[in-house]
């Protein structure tokens, strides 16, 4: 009597684990940068820069640049999540969801580029 076939390797848990790692690490790093920049600005009694385009803030260097980098990193984090999901679907052979994640990734990346271009043009 032959033994039952071994179950196919579960791909999903790897997807969940990978996405969770990216989400947790990304959130921690971004919030840490935001907090560090904010605390350093308070300690150094730096003059408040006010609302400025995020890339200008980052170029300005100093504590507020660290905060701005953290804010931008937080905003870009979902791109990383979608990239990891696409990779996982691709290696797992889930073509339909690979296409879904690539479309969403392209739309999100496109919206970031359009926002940056529109802001630069205005």
């Amino acid at each position, binding site marked *: 009597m032959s033994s039952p076939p071994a*179950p196919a390797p*579960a*791909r*999903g*848990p790897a*997807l*969940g684990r990978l*996405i*969770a790692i990216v*989400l*947790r690490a*990304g*959130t921690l790093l*971004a*919030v840490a940068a*935001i*907090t560090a*920049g*904010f605390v350093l*600005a*308070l300690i150094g009694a730096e003059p*408040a*820069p*006010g*609302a*400025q*385009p*995020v*890339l200008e*803030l980052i170029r300005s260097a100093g504590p*507020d640049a660290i*905060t*701005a980098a*953290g*804010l931008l990193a*937080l*905003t*870009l*984090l*979902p*791109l990383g*999540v*979608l990239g990891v*999901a696409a990779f996982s679907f691709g290696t797992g052979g889930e073509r339909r*969801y690979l296409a*879904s*994640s690539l*479309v*969403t990734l392209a*739309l*999100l990346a*496109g*919206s*970031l580029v*359009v*926002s*940056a271009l*529109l*802001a630069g043009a*205005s």
Partner: protein
Amino acid sequence: MPTELVLILSGLVAGTFGAMLGLGGGLLIVPILTLGFGLPLTAAVGTSLVCVIATSTGAAAFNVRAGRADVRLGITLGAATVVGAATGGIAAGVLPDRLIAGLFAALLAYTALVMLRGLRAAGARREPEVEVDPASPDGPNAPAYRARRLPAALGGSLVAGNVSGLLGVGGGIISVPLVHLVMGAPMRVAVATSNFMIGITAAAGASAYLFRGEIDPRVAAPVVVGVTIGAAIGASVAARLRASWLTALFVAVVAYVAFRMALRAMGAE
């Protein structure tokens, strides 16, 4: 009290309330920053969206790992919410402040009504247990169900994204009923999946405000810190609290804030 400390506390309160009620902090952050701190509405909306990303990604890490969120569905609907949020965020740059305030007041009034109806219906029906399929590719905790009416859900997601990008909220007030009632996902899955989607959606909206230079880092930083801590507190105490009195209080607060925002929309404030 220093302004920075008040901002942290405001974020803390918004994050705690939002996590306890599953709404995210945006519904409270925007009114707090505009009515309490006198920030322009677009600056408050942009700051709120960054906070929404922080709370969403923080909670989604747990939900995705535990298999409560349907990542595949979230990513599929995310395509529509991203388009909606990006257009909402861009439109906010050209729409008059008073129109946005009016739309926000309408959203708050709608939220208060939905929560009031939920409060009345509480106890009348029990949420069915999530069916568990150990063979599911997402692991033993992943729910087994078949999502339906994808085209309708994509249309609704476009609206949810637009509301998010324009008004600085997560959009969960639209996407949770959409995933639960329209697509047939169990409620817990709908909440977790919506939470996962919200981060992707808010990123598309927030980028418009960040690149336009409408987010002040000295305002956003303390609020993000407060909201992140508050969301962790809210999530940990939510399971131990009887939610009905909290929901009633929240409905009262939301109704009051809707009234104040409506006054602002009419130019009376």
